[in-house]
């Protein structure tokens, strides 16, 4: 009787421990040469969930990236999958790899940054595993309860996932970046999978080149809207940005009018930024734009229309013609 009782207790305990055990897979985003910074924010999110963190580096000749990842504190294992088939990081070839990895390790959570790559890949994986994915989280309450925004950031939703596996994309600006030094994770090869892909093919990329900091990671962002009138006038913003070490963004109006390329768009359907300082120049402040920048620490608005909605969220508002204000600001900032 006694021994049976003991055994039951032991079994229960084991089940309890097993049920509680968390292990998270973070899909590293990189360009085969170096890690994309949002992976560091995603690792911080994974740390908040608790448990072991494994990081998957899949690409073509990307062992350098795996080395970089193994030094990130908090990562306990790095899985490397080096294959020509991952050229262009197409979801059609990455999904089979992830399925094989999940089958072998049985993670409780799979995370990636909410970038074009993460957004393209995770739902495909989730459907294959019959999991309802969770997009663009901004907070973690516990291992199954997450916080995200809906309606262009105008409402905050807290949801509890009923799936046993959680597949989640992480808003980079909502989590600090993990350190790049101090860890010492073991590296091993990822499980082999049939990743042959004859349905899609990467052709080419045309990336906008810039010496300025990357938009989503910049400490200061200066954005221009329709008020800039044309593409040439954006040079004024570039000049100011260079003086301030800032990145330059744009509203949808400025992108649609062809002033600047679309990867500069800040908003619900563009990039989400949360810099220390956001300077909105000639931007009225439509809901869709605010969705992409209203978590900035300090917001400055320069607009000649005192009624522009942007002034309702701006910490400092200057009602002035931008064509006068911006060059003057560049002058003063340059003199310091």
């Amino acid at each position, binding site marked *: 009787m006694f021994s049976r009782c003991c055994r039951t207790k032991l079994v229960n305990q084991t089940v309890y421990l097993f049920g509680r055990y968390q292990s998270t897979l973070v899909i590293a985003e990189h360009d085969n040469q170096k890690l994309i910074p949002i992976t560091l924010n995603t690792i911080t999110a994974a740390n908040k969930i608790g448990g072991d963190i494994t990081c998957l580096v899949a690409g073509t000749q990307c062992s350098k990236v795996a080395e970089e990842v193994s030094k990130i504190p908090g990562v306990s294992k790095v899985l490397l999958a080096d294959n020509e088939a991952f050229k262009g990081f197409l979801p059609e070839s990455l999904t089979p790899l992830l399925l094989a990895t999940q089958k072998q390790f049985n993670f409780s959570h799979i995370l990636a940054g909410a970038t*074009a790559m993460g957004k393209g890949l995770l*739902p*495909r994986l989730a459907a294959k595993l019959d999991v309802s994915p969770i997009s663009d989280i901004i907070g973690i309450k516990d291992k199954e309860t997450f916080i995200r925004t809906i309606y262009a950031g105008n409402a*905050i939703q807290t949801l509890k996932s009923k799936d046993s596996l959680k597949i989640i994309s992480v808003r980079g600006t909502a989590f600090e970046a993990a350190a790049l030094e101090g860890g010492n994770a073991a590296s091993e090869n990822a499980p082999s999978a049939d990743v042959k892909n004859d*349905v899609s093919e990467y052709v080419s990329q045309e990336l906008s080149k810039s010496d300025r900091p990357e938009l*989503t990671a910049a400490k200061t962002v200066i954005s221009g809207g329709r008020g800039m009138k044309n593409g040439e006038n954006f040079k004024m913003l570039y000049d100011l940005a260079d003086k301030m070490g800032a990145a330059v963004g744009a509203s949808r109006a400025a992108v649609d009018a062809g002033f600047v390329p679309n990867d500069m768009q800040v908003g619900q359907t563009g990039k989400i930024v949360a810099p220390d300082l956001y300077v909105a120049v000639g931007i009225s402040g439509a809901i869709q734009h605010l969705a992409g920048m209203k978590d900035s620490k300090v917001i400055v608005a320069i607009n000649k229309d005192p009624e522009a909605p942007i002034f309702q969220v701006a910490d400092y508002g200057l009602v002035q013609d931008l064509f006068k204000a911006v060059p003057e600001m560049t002058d003063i900032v340059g003199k310091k």
Partner: protein
Amino acid sequence: MSALRVLVGCKRVIDYAVKIRVKPDKTGVVTDGVKHSMNPFDEIAIEEAVRLKEKKIASEVIAVSCGPQQCQETLRTALAMGADRAIHVDIDPKDYETLQPIHVSKFLAKLAQDEKADIVIVGKQAIDDDCNQTGQMTAALLDWPQATFASKVEKNNGDLTVIREIDGGLETIKVKLPAVLTADLRLNEPRYATLPNIMKAKKKPMAKKTPSDLGVDVASRQEIVSVEDPPVREAGQKVESVEDLVTKLKDSGLV
């Protein structure tokens, strides 16, 4: 290859220009008596499908919407824009509250097979739940390639060449047909439905299906714990001059 059949998903959402209100009991946002329209990205999806038909690449455009009765208005809009026929997947309003991309993608995948579609086009995201999942999940369920965030689509032979909007710029990929596309904002400029076309759309066929017709379980997969207002930013101040502004920023250590 013979002309293609295109299935387009369109969602009825609160109009993009409406300032939403969160319900006092924190269960969701107020939708009663609020202006609704077709999700802007889905208008772009419909427009692209209709253009494929005008270019004689597509032979038929089928619009699908999953939701309560009022979705039929959204489908009429799609028909007025040039879709040939519509399928309304009728969801009980109670189930609709917890309906998610995982459910919708199962409907779309089943319909794509039943209707022998060659291309499924959906918007890249709905502006209410902001999920950005349905297209990718539909592609997975069908085992078709996906071309997400498309800003340009061209057909050559059995392939589609698609320019995608990615974080650092643009990317070109090729996908074999059949395929799933998700439309980005810059794919096209959707047309307005003219009055004669709106009248004609009333006569176009609209089929009604239920989740059980399509063999999809709509049980909720996530529990909404709460929906709340975002933190309100404290009122800021107006400054008189650029000098003032820069001084203030310097004092806060931002410049």
